[in-house]
């Protein structure tokens, strides 16, 4: 765990993962782009609104033999709500995303190979998905136009406040999850599974005042 000084405010910016080119200063919310040994400021990230997720940077866990640690987060807002996407640094050396909404968790990895799927390709070219549409065993359960509300920690991209995307969530009948996101840059598909918090065997969760930490998470 190394730390650098934020060029905007001088605060210490811990770098949780050496693989990530971007970090967000937890103090002044500047997005920092790492260059060689130092960091450069590329603009303010949206301020992360207050929230009470049990997950925090540094939360670790293990699911299906895969260990992970939370190293970053992007928060998305839609017209009537918001959700978190936590970036995980995993034991197999790969990065994954943990989507968190409505108290439910989606553990996802990138599936660039799905770009060639005809439906994903149509989506990439501007067509809309509607609730109930299917891709193989998956059906669409959620269609959202979202706006980036902010980021924290180490991220593979900057999180400008004017970043918008269309996010489509799919479910199957066995707990599988598919998520397709389209922004100005293009389309990316992610696939994985839904999990309960308990199934993630989390450690180092955020302690929340007024709520005792369940014994099995301590």
């Amino acid at each position, binding site marked *: 765990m190394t730390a650098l000084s934020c*060029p*905007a*405010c*001088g605060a210490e910016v811990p770098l949780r993962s050496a693989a990530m080119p971007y970090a967000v200063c937890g*103090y*002044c919310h500047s997005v920092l782009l790492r260059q060689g040994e130092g960091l450069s400021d590329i603009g*303010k990230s949206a*301020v992360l*609104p*207050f*929230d*009470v*997720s*049990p997950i*925090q940077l540094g939360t670790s866990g293990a699911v299906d033999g895969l260990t992970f640690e939370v190293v970053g987060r992007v928060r998305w*807002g839609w*017209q*009537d*709500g*918001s959700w978190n996407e936590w970036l995980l640094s995993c034991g197999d050396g790969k990065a994954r995303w943990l989507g968190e*909404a*409505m*108290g*439910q968790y989606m553990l996802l990895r990138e599936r660039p190979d799905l770009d060639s799927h005809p439906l994903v390709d149509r989506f990439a070219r501007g067509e809309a998905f509607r*609730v*109930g549409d299917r891709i193989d065993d998956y*059906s*669409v*359960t*959620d*269609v*959202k136009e979202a706006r980036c509300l902010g980021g924290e920690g180490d991220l593979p991209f900057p999180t400008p406040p004017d970043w918008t995307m269309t996010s489509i969530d799919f*479910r*199957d*009948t*066995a*707990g*599988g*999850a598919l998520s397709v996101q389209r922004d100005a840059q293009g389309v990316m598909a992610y696939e994985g599974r*839904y999990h*309960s*918090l308990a199934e993630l065997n989390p450690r180092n*969760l*955020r*302690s*929340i*005042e*007024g*709520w*005792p*930490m*369940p014994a099995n*998470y301590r």
Partner: protein
Amino acid sequence: MSAARLINCPSCGGSIAIKAAGYSTTVACQYCGSELDVTNPDVRLITEYHQAASAGDLPLGARGTLVGTEWEVIGRLERSDDGASWTEYLLFNPYAGYRWLIEADGEWSLGTALNRNPVTESDDVVTLDGTRFFLDYAPVTTRTNSVVGEFYWRVRAGDTVEATTFSSGGSSLSWERSADEVNWTLTEQLPDGDAVRASFADPAPASPSAGPATGGGPRQFGRKASASPRTASAAQGLTPVKRASDGDDLSKMIGIAIATCFLLLVIGIFFGMSRGSVSQSMTVYTGEPARTMMLGTVTLKRPYQAVTITARGDQFVNKWVDLDYSLVDRRTQQAIDAYGIVEYYAGRDSDGNWTEGSRRETTKFASVPAGTYDVMVEAKAQNWSSSSYSSSTSSSWASGDGSGWGSAPESINLRFTITPGGVFFGNMAMFMLLIFAPIAVWMWRKAQASKSGYRR
């Protein structure tokens, strides 16, 4: 990290604690029923109602245990379709997520949102984990009639969804579809509705000790002990004492006054005694926006008592921190506010070194009613720059607010101690004055009388 952020209703000013801040996007003010949008840091009003939220069976903020997990009731919906109406409570626990507690005609059930779709066998049969559920009725429009509390999406009175249920014994699967979402919820009947109600009963306020004392209770100050009445013979047993001199009277009076003051002090300290103080630390940075934090929770058992909050800053100089305290009653969400400031300045002028202010500040709340209170503070730190610094220099390092090097943010560590109780020495002094005043008057009159030769 606290789980509540304090906001005020822009419509009626009532103070509302967001229990699931960040997940929740809608809060309906329980005082006026207005719907608030809490996705924005500055809370916007969605709809003004100006009607008291209807009193529900389960009070918002009540906590209870269901299936081995503690839940807090954070929201309530009144919903109906063309055949029935029912109530849905949203339960929340940050480590367990959300559940729905549904009451229809006195029958209670617990709903869990599913993260997988049931398998569709035919138009009217679906299976989940091998159990077959049968369609109850064709999908109908289900309407949300009223909203109180908070939800993880912006629910509005008047919202409609297409909905139906599939049943299997005491369990059912509810299917709801809106324009951009479809949700399946598994609900299980809770056979003992009374137990559910009892579990979420409001925490009973501590019984005030000021009621009529029952036999065997502690003896109360000021009440005659129910000992055997004094008999006439005992009274007759008193021998007349020699009339004491005036001087003796005066010394007795002063003695009684001093004893009364001592007793008053003892009573004051006894009733102001601290029981279970709470401590919390916080770091604030000069020039930054105000930070809000929950310092802890205090439970007050007496009908009325004082609450003392002490703030201590570390070794800072030429800065001040404004402290806006709020005691938020968990049950009613009513807030009691008080203000404090820690400030410390030092410098040098023609007279030598000077210092001003104190890094320690004590703030007292008087007569706080019994209840469980979340203690919140909003702290804003400021740098006091003397005229020797120019604060108008702007530099490329400015962090967005046009301030330069002169006001680079500096941290101040604060330590708060919240103590139920507190002695109001000002009131004490007034009582003492009142006790001694008659004596002083009497002495003055005696002096006047002795001058005129009159003697009583």
